[in-house]
């Protein structure tokens, strides 16, 4: 069907897709686990939050912004010592997860924070009037009420990670994007480039539809 799709190339594509999945999945998992607490901390300690702590809020916000504003390709090489500390090496698919997770965490933390800010203040006030503790307000009001927004944030982050992961080739991370660059561009094989691009489009589409469906299910408006 596709004559240029040799068995060798097929293996390469499968391997690259797998690498992309690992990088995106790993980084997304970390960003979810670390990003949500950061977002909650940012939200709760804001001046108009449940327990305002500017001393904590401002530095934390600054760090998140710093990570967010550093171009990913620079971030990746800038944190090589840290990557080595965490992953034991600074090259390879596993090592690429470290900078991806860092960038995604900062990214998702802001998106989560926005989603939390969308929660109706009146509902929080009602919970306070019922005698809810701060922890109860966070766990039983803020997070469930923000759920559609939180899921949408995860979707956006996953899609962005697919894009970022293409740059992971710079540290030997592999993946579909890297395959496209090395074979499609550097070896003049436009059909490989096209295949990679189509695969990435399909991947992003799938992620987006899945995310949208979950958002709909979580929305009771």
């Amino acid at each position: 069907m596709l004559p240029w799709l040799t068995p060798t190339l097929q293996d390469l594509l499968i391997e690259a897709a797998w690498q992309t999945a690992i990088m995106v999945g790993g980084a997304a998992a970390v960003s979810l686990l670390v990003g949500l607490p950061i977002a909650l901390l940012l939200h709760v300690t804001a001046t108009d939050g449940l327990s305002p702590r500017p001393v904590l809020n401002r530095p934390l916000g600054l760090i998140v912004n710093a990570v967010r504003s550093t171009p990913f390709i620079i971030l990746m090489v800038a944190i090589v010592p840290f990557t080595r500390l965490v992953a034991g090496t600074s090259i390879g698919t596993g090592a690429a997860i470290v900078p991806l997770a860092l960038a995604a965490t900062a990214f998702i933390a802001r998106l989560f924070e926005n989603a939390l800010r969308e929660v109706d203040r009146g509902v929080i006030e009602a919970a306070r009037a019922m005698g809810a503790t701060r922890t109860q307000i966070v766990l039983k009001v803020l997070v469930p009420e923000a759920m559609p927004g939180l899921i949408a944030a995860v979707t956006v982050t996953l899609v962005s990670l697919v894009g970022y992961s293409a740059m992971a080739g710079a540290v030997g991370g592999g993946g579909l994007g890297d395959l496209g660059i090395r074979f499609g561009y550097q070896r003049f094989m436009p059909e490989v480039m096209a295949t990679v691009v189509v695969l990435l489009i399909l991947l992003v589409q799938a992620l987006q539809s899945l995310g949208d469906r979950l958002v709909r299910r979580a929305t009771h408006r």
Partner: protein
Amino acid sequence: MPRDAAAEPGQAAGLRPPAVRLQNLSKRFPGALKPALDDVSLEVAPGEVFGIVGRSGAGKSTLIRCVNLLERPDAGSVEVEGTLLTGLDEAGLRAARRRIGMVFQHFNLLSSRTVAENIAFPLEIAGVPRAARRTRVEELLPLVGLAEKRDAYPAQLSGGQKQRVGIARALASAPGLLLCDEATSALDPETTTEILALLGDLRTRLNLTILLITHEMAVVKTLCDRVAVLEAGRVIEQGRVFDVFTDPQAPTTRRFVAEVIGTAVPAATLAALPAPNAGETRRLLRVLFTGTAATRAVVSEASRRFGIDLNIVSGRIDAIGDAPFGILALAAYGAPGAVEGAAAWMRGLGLHVGDLAAEEA
């Protein structure tokens, strides 16, 4: 007339502490020129429905939010059912809040939870076991007429239904005191009537004390026993609803009262009244009939006794709670002394006689 007597005879008797006692509450928001609350003191007796009425910005919201300390007053004390809330620590305050129900203008329901789950929410917070929560929700659903909507989400409900959920939720932990923050202000008139009827019904059934704030005098007229009028953070008038409605003192109160039991006569009507004959005088009187005086043929008797002509410009009969009253706007023609004499005679019968023109101001 004692303006600030206890609510209903018997209700305030006994040794029960006041449901709410606010003493010298003051609050100024940072950056605000004027205080939101300026030395407000109020007492709500157990079992009464107390209304606080005022224009937007008068400080009503701040006041009711001070009762469960959602808002901290800068000065003054808040006591609810004998507990000094302003003296409690965080944990103590949370426990106290669980015994105070609150209903909100915009319902403030959790959109991610069903009706039943919303009603169960305060119980969940208080650590009530699941089975007991379910039993309580099943009791509350029919009480507010929502048994059919158990599993609906708030977005699928009408405004009135949402407020019913809000009320059931506020009552979930069987509080003695219910705070209503403009509970009907987001509803259409018909639904407002419905919700007020529900609150009135629940009040007697559950022996609730209700403290409500509103900008609608009609709400006060329908539901309240006593009312306080708030203006610029101060209580400018308070008393039994019937007294305040039939004999308002402050100009703001008069304007509020006029909204529901308007006594103002159109200027064109007044202008069309015939001028008095030479040597005679004309006075425009507003006569308020309450109680037994309403049964007497006052107009014809005054006319006969004092030899004056009384022209009825407008009149209406209304009731506050179960107490009926009537208001007449009269144009009185006659010798100056005779008109004054008739007014004095009517006052002697227990009628409230005032100047109609002054009422209009």
